[in-house]
């Protein structure tokens, strides 16, 4: 009773209609307050999401372009003898090419030369080498090549280095900036799309570092995870839901599976380290081991999703099939399972999306190693997308800041795609009985 209610006896009780009217204002107010809280929570969440996305995209978009410089290089037969192609002195050839634009630099002065060529990425000589090795007839000719510039100059060109900062606080001194500006004035500097971000593996030099190794590693790990967890998870779910006797043991198993889904991923990583690598002697850093670990984590998700999907198939369908004389097996595999498939696939995709973003267990089995080539099999050492983000976030070079954000964007894109597929499947195959 509220305070305003007159004490009984003195006045006749308010009629029902009046009582409803009196309480209505209070009830409406409560509802408004609740709705207000709800809207505030949503606005807060969306704001946070926007801040997150803005910061990631704002940092990351720089990494999708890479500053290059175009040079006319004379492939000097004296520096690069035809018989020893891979071991030629490509560095010197590039220095000479640079020197043509800087006649004031004495190329016999090693320190001055090194300062000059520091504009070019360390990988430039290898790009040139690969070109010449692929086509030895280039020797003796002058060819035009576009090579990436090293990270500090890349940052400079993208405007990430403040030119008005005092010289002593800058990575690049005034001379270095002048030299780069001279190249820029000659219209030799360009900023094309950074295909290396996808086509190259990791590197110590940000301008050369790419995600290929991580993408391939994640692919192998997810494939292993899917191949193991999908059939095992569905099999376990079908047995538990359709065939297993309902008793204390099946209850115990069910509780354990539900608990397993809530175990912190780092624990799975330790388990994998001890069992797969310690006992079974499987290779470290291998996506196969990563996939096994992720399969352990994904399986409970798949089992729970599958059981829910099987339960959602209406009993009338089972009865119909039993009624015409289908055996238990036929009921399950010809009627129930096909109808539950969209739900199972949705659960599986969401489980795999979780696995794709999982970092901690992969760190423990060594998938955060520095590996400069893409794995050609699931047993080669590799990194995965989330661990690559971890490695880059940990690297001191300025260029890795934007690359970390770019890698996050790539990972998010995959996650969004996978979830979109799950939503599409769910809505497409949703049945109404």
């Amino acid at each position: 009773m509220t305070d305003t209610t007159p004490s009984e006896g003195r006045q006749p009780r308010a009629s029902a209609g009046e009582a409803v009217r009196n309480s209505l204002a209070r009830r409406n107010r409560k509802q408004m307050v609740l709705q207000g809280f709800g809207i505030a929570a949503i606005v807060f969440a969306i704001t946070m999401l926007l801040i997150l996305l803005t910061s990631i995209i704002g940092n990351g978009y720089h990494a999708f372009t890479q500053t290059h410089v175009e040079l006319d290089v004379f492939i000097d037969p004296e520096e690069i003898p035809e018989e020893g192609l891979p071991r030629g002195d490509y560095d010197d050839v590039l220095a000479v090419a640079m020197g043509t634009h800087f006649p004031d630099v004495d190329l016999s002065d090693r320190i001055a030369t090194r300062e000059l060529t520091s504009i070019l990425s360390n990988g430039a000589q290898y790009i040139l080498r690969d070109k010449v090795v692929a086509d030895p007839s280039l020797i003796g000719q002058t060819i035009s090549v576009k090579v990436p510039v090293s990270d500090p100059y890349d940052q400079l060109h993208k405007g990430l280095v403040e030119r008005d900062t005092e010289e002593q606080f800058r990575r690049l001194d005034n001379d270095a900036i002048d030299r780069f500006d001279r190249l820029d004035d000659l219209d030799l500097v360009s900023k094309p799309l950074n295909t290396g971000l996808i086509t190259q593996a990791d590197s110590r030099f940000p301008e050369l570092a790419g995600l290929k190794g991580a993408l391939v590693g994640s692919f192998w790990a997810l494939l292993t995870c899917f191949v193991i967890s999908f059939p095992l998870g569905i099999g376990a779910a079908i047995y538990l839901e359709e065939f297993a006797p309902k008793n204390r043991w099946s209850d115990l198993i069910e509780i354990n599976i539900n608990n397993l889904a809530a175990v912190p991923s780092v624990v799975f990583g330790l388990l994998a380290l001890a069992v797969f690598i310690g006992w079974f002697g499987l290779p470290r850093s291998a996506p196969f081991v990563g996939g096994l670990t992720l399969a352990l984590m994904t399986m409970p998700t798949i089992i729970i999703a599958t059981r829910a999907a099987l339960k959602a198939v209406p009993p009338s369908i089972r009865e119909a099939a039993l009624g015409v004389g289908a055996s238990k097996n036929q009921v399950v595999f010809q009627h129930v399972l096909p109808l539950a498939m969209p739900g199972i696939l949705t659960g599986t995709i969401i489980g795999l999306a979780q696995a794709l973003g999982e970092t901690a267990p992969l760190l423990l089995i060594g998938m955060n190693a520095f590996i400069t080539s893409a794995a050609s099999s699931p047993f080669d050492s590799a990194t995965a997308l989330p661990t690559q983000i971890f490695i880059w976030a940990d690297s001191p070079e300025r260029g890795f800041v934007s690359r970390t954000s770019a890698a996050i964007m790539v990972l998010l894109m995959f996650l969004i795609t996978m979830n979109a597929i799950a939503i599409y499947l769910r809505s497409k195959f949703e049945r109404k009985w």
Partner: protein
Amino acid sequence: MYDAPHKDKDVTQNDIKISARDVQVFYGDTQAIKDVDVEIDDKTVTAFIGPSGCGKSTFLRCLNRMNDTIDICRIEGKISIDGEDIYDPSIDPVQLRAKVGMVFQKPNPFPKSIYENVAYGPKIHGMARNKAELDEIVENALKRAALWNEAKDRLDSPGTGLSGGQQQRLCIARAVATEPEVLLMDEPCSALDPIATAQVEELIDELRQTYSVVIVTHSMQQAARVSQKTAFFHLGNLVEFGDTEQIFTNPKDERTESYITGRIG
């Protein structure tokens, strides 16, 4: 609704198809069926009537061992079809259900094509050697269920796209496609409108030529219209069993009379 003249005349000439002796059914600790003795004739429509929860559906589902799928359900006593105990360990419920077809309360076609719905039973039992034979079985079953004319041009469209009455006839076609000897119907018209109900009732009378039909119904009018024999269940007991005409005109038990005249139920 339709003419069914003197259909009760040939009742006594029929053989006994199903006989139940002293049947008890328990769900856990609750007894749902007590001491039921009944003999169901071949080529006859037998109706089970009674108030909700009286056990008529439970008893019906004992006849094709549908209750086996419920873990806590326990059945005692003896039920035999053609003199063979259907709860004998040597009997496979799958085999039994091919012989005893069932139509359910709510139309439940498989979410597959009309053809697939009817062909499913014959397929899993290996009743057709080739596509032509299967086509023939499907056609005959749909004809028997009076659905052929409506469905012949759309055999590949989904069974769930049919109207409620058509769906129920499709379910009947699916049940007769496996050539059962007994057809169990659990309130087959409760989800249908009066016109569809009339069609299904007409069909039930047709099916009597070939099968022993057992129908559970809430509608006493329906029981009176379609059946030759009627069993009245109350609180798990089989109160009275006899010719439909006798049950409705001259019930021996006062509980039957109360139910029929609308005083209990």
